[in-house]
């Protein structure tokens, strides 16, 4: 399969072959990621196509490396927009389930929360992730960034589904404590 550098080169030459190569190499991952969020194949297909268009418009001048992470970020952002726009609650995607899991960990109805900026929260989550083992960090990111199912994560990291579900329970509890210590809610 063609190297990332070659695909970027095609983008820079404004060759539409860039999109075909990008799709051939990473299309499957992108569709899966999108479908995890929107839970609708047609929507997922549209999100991925929009992401390709986004990449087409951004490269150049952008010269992303690694390319897969870059395209995944675009796919995720576009898919989330569709998710929230189109009756999120009825979608029942893995993303919905993952967000329900996390809700118990972050919502505190008894306090008046100060609005925290997403970037600020991201920094706190990053410092939390830095404290986890690499394996647990990957499990967390696969669940709450990629919205992978426990079964998919189990296959990916080579553990049982039950093990993944238990690890996630523990990590969420740790995150809850971590956020509470930093008074994220008050």
């Amino acid at each position, binding site marked *: 399969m063609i190297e990332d550098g070659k695909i970027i080169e095609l983008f820079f030459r404004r060759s539409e072959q860039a999109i075909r190569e990008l799709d051939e190499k990473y299309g499957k991952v992108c569709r899966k990621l999108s479908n995890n969020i929107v839970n609708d194949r047609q929507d997922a297909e549209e999100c991925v196509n929009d992401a390709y268009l986004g990449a087409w418009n951004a490269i150049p001048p952008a010269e992303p490396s*690694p390319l*897969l*992470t*870059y395209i*995944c*970020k675009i796919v*995720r*952002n576009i898919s*989330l927009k569709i998710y*929230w726009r189109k009756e999120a609650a009825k979608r029942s995607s893995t993303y919905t389930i993952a*967000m*329900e899991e*996390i*809700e118990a960990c*972050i*919502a505190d109805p008894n306090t008046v*929360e100060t609005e*925290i900026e*997403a*970037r600020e*929260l*991201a920094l706190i*989550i*990053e410092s939390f*992730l830095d404290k986890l*083992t*690499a*394996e*647990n*960090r*990957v499990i967390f*990111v*696969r669940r*709450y*960034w*990629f919205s992978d199912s426990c079964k998919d994560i189990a296959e*990916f*990291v*080579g553990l049982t589904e*039950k*093990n993944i*579900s*238990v*690890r996630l*329970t*523990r990590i969420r509890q740790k995150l809850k404590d971590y956020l509470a210590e930093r008074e*994220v*809610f008050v």
Partner: protein
Amino acid sequence: MTPKKFSEAMSELDSKYVNEAINYKKKVRKPVWVKWGAAVACLSVIFIVGMFALRPNDSSLVSIGGIVRDYKDVHVVGSESAIVWPWEYKTIAEQYTTINLNGKEYYSGGRSVDASFVSEFVGTVDVMGYDDYTDQYHKITSEAYRIDGISEDHIVAVKLGEEFYTFKYNKYAPPANWGEVLDNYTPEQTLPLTQFAEYDGYEEKGYFRLNNDMYIWDVLNACRDAEFVEDDSWSESNSNRDYLSFTATSDALGIYKAVFNVTKDGYIWTNIFDYAYIFRIGREAADQIISYAVENGTESEAEPYNFSLAGTLTEIADGYILVDDTILCSNEKDGMTFKVYLNDLRISRCIDFGGIGVGDIVVVYFTGNIDIDAGNVVEGAFSLSKGTIYDGGVSVPE
């Protein structure tokens, strides 16, 4: 904060975390049975080489359900497969696997429990099953009962057909300490600890049997305050631990050959609750258990997880199949034919649906003996799969 805000924050994560999650390579894990001994064994593979004694002339003496066979230096790998059986080919325990009792979901592991363990009626329950082929749910109504010594908050017995099966509350909710385990499961009654293997790190020092485990439970019952240790990497940092590995089989708890380890540095490690639980009982208690077991244990033979035999499927008759092991024998004239009855759905479906036919190399898994007088009848056969013979070399399957 809302999930949406959390999700937005996740979108802002530095790319390095996403890169890491994309490029992560799974660890090659040592099989559990390497770490924790023969009590937990590989389900899908039989090692024909080396179960008894290797002989110099490229052959091995192998015990097949107690019968010693002189086989070539080969091993047979059963292509055990997670076959998803159509609804009509599933046993009732495989069909109906979930109940909802008092708002909590319990799952069955398919293990039956003898009626003598079953006590008070707990309630009428809908038992749900899912058919993967038609994407449909099935439901029957049945009765749930308490199991002697075990809190119904954790495990109940549900009647399916004529038998009772254990259903466990599956949510991960570890106890704060060992005392909660004693209260919820009365392991002194429900979990015999009489068979064990001794390990120095990964080195296995032998298999032993105890006449009774009363002293061990006296020690364990005094460890009520032993705290639960939550540490995912505990067992991975384990190569230097010395420990006794007890075989944990209990109908009441719905477990078969799980492990209950006592380490010299003062821990209990067990997978009897589905997920690994660790308790810190302290060196003194661990030493009391280990010293007692070592002093009073008598040497015994290692027991495989299941028995298995392999050979060529030579005949599918009305009600049974014949498996001939000549192909494995050092001397072809020594071949034996084994008879496996098809009166168990778990065997007959392998022929009717599993695509196994005459001429195939097959592996038969069984729990009983081989009745020579009845014509080498394999008792307790519960699974049949195609096998592949590997000549020499060693392959360690995942």
